[in-house]
């Protein structure tokens, strides 16, 4: 009421009142109030949202996307909750900017992130786990009015559950094959707790991102991987050598056996052949032993002597031959033959 305002305002209003007349003032105020009331009687709900209309504070109705009407402020209020949108919480890392301009940028590793991501495994080692939780607000009334700080609740529960699940497994399991099982287990357990709390939240997915050993320990882990590769390589090399050499040895064995069989056939054939030949000769020999014998002897000598390098024929009466005959093993040089002063029938042509 203007009447109670300080003097100058009162005076000012009096002047205006005089100009407009008191009816004009009342009409103006009433018009403004009405306008504000009317302004607050309609609202739009975006496609991904749900509107919750509260009458005198109590939930009266929920409305879907579109244009809606309500009683003016003071009687009814509306709250908009993005129920269709998938919301995300990041653990152990922070996305600064996503997508449109190119690659996603992540906040540099801070201690706060490490506090979240470092956890103990079942074998009492430390592991660095980064993960995300995606959820939807399934029941906006519960989301708003059953739990205060719903977001922090989701974060706390996510950390508690992830630590419990990781603590119940071996570090090497979480690092390798256990990833999927871990996220499934976390999701299930988190959902159960969040439902018990009546948060009205439905988890869409829990996904592990980078799961690594702590930075200080990483090189040692890499060394184990290298060693595993080394092991495989060494074994493969040995296997390769074995695969190369054994078939080869088998082949060689078969060859020597076959050769031996060849030898056997040859040996027996030769024996039979020679035996037959001998028998044949023997038969003829027995008819004229003396002559045949002599003939054979002379024939043999006749074929041997022309082949010899040197031939010395010594008179049987000559006794002192050895002192001046220089015998050498190996080829006898032509000079030596001359020096010896002997009659050398070299390559003797006598038949």
């Amino acid at each position: 009421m203007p009447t109670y305002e300080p003097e100058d305002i009162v005076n000012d209003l009096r002047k205006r009142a005089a100009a407009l007349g008191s009816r004009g003032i009342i009409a103006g105020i009433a018009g403004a109030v009405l306008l504000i009331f009317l302004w607050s009687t309609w609202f739009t709900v975006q496609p991904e949202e749900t509107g919750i209309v509260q009458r005198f504070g109590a939930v009266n109705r929920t409305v879907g996307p579109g244009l809606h009407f309500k009683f003016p402020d003071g009687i009814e209020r509306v709250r908009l909750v993005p129920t269709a949108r998938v919301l995300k919480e990041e653990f152990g890392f922070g996305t600064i900017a996503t997508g449109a301009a190119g690659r996603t940028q992540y906040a540099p590793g801070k201690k706060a992130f490490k506090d979240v991501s470092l956890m103990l495994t079942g074998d009492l080692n430390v592991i660095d786990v980064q993960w995300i939780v995606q959820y939807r607000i399934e029941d906006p009334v519960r989301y708003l009015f059953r739990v205060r700080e719903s977001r922090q609740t989701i974060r706390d529960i996510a950390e508690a559950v992830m630590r419990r699940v990781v603590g119940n497994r071996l570090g090497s399991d979480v690092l390798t094959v256990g990833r999927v099982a871990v996220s499934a287990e976390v999701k299930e357990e988190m959902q159960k707790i969040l439902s018990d709390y009546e948060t009205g939240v439905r988890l869409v997915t829990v996904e592990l991102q980078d799961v690594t050993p702590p930075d200080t320990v990483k090189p040692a882990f890499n060394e184990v991987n290298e060693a595993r590769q080394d092991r495989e390589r060494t074994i493969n090399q040995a296997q390769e050598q074995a695969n190369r050499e054994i078939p080869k040895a088998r082949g060689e064995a078969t060859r020597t056996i076959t050769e031996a069989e060849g030898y056997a056939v040859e040996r027996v054939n030769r024996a039979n052949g020679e035996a037959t030949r001998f028998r044949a000769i023997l038969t003829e020999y027995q008819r004229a032993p003396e002559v045949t014998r002599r003939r054979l002897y002379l024939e043999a000598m006749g074929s041997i002597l022309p082949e010899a390098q040197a031939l010395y024929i010594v008179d049987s009466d000559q006794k002192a031959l050895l002192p001046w005959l220089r015998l050498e093993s190996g080829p006898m040089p032509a000079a030596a033959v001359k020096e010896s002063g002997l009659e050398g029938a070299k390559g003797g042509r006598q038949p």
Partner: protein
Amino acid sequence: MKNALNIGFGVLVLAIVVAVSGTFYTLEEGEQAVIVQFGRPVGDPVTEAGLHVKLPFVQDVRRFEKRLLIWDGDPNQIPTKGREFIWIDTTARWRIADARKFLENVATEAGARSRLNDIIDSVVRDQVSGSELVELVRSASWVVPEGEILEEVPAEVREELKKAVVRGREEITRTILAEARKVIPQYGIELVDVRIKRLDYVESVREKVYARMISERKRIAARFRSEGEGRSAEILGTMEKELRQIRSTAYRRVQEIRGKADAEATRVYGAAYSGDPEFYAFSRTLEAYKEGQNKNSVVILTTDSDYYRYLKQSGGTGATRQIR
């Protein structure tokens, strides 16, 4: 006076507005209220949201949360039963179950938090210092790992892994909740849940753990390498054995075959040559002479030899000499 009338009218309107607004009050969804008359709570707490009536001027509305609230404790450094110092960070969920008791006992959320601090911290401290670290980390559903996954676990840790979990984190958490709940209802608070949010080594211990992890890894790496070498040696050994077996078997076969052939040949020769051993010796000797002959041979013969006997004399007595 027209002015005085106006003022009087204005005061009246104001009084009516104040009286009406003092009679009605709205309660937001998620809130509850206690009606206080001259500072003393009256009646049951109001828990239904909406428009409510009270006495104007004499009664006052104290609003409280009906929703689930967070209690987040400061991280504590606590030694476990095994004397390892760990950081433990717990979080709890609570709600104001009885607004009147709450108003009478702790009055504000800050007051409630400080009570919860005292109670939960001490219970957590008791439970943690009475438990092994392993019990705090693992759960009752701990499955003794086996198979390939153990490949990277050092032998002495494997033994430790086989120990059954007696209580486990869940059971310890449940005990904390149960112990804390015993004291809390008198404040009008309902403790819904207590959970261990974080559990970590203190800085100095963490360094040692890292050093241990590194040495473990190095040992495992060394084991892998030597396993590789061992397997390799094994394969090469087996290969060597097989090679020797193959070669010696072949050698045996060769000797058998050759021996059999030689025996056969010997038999054949024997049968043939025994017809006239002397003639065989003679003819074979001549053969041997021919075979033993080469370009470098030097032959010395006397004129006594059968071949040259006619070189000295053309016949006679010498011819009758027995030939050997």
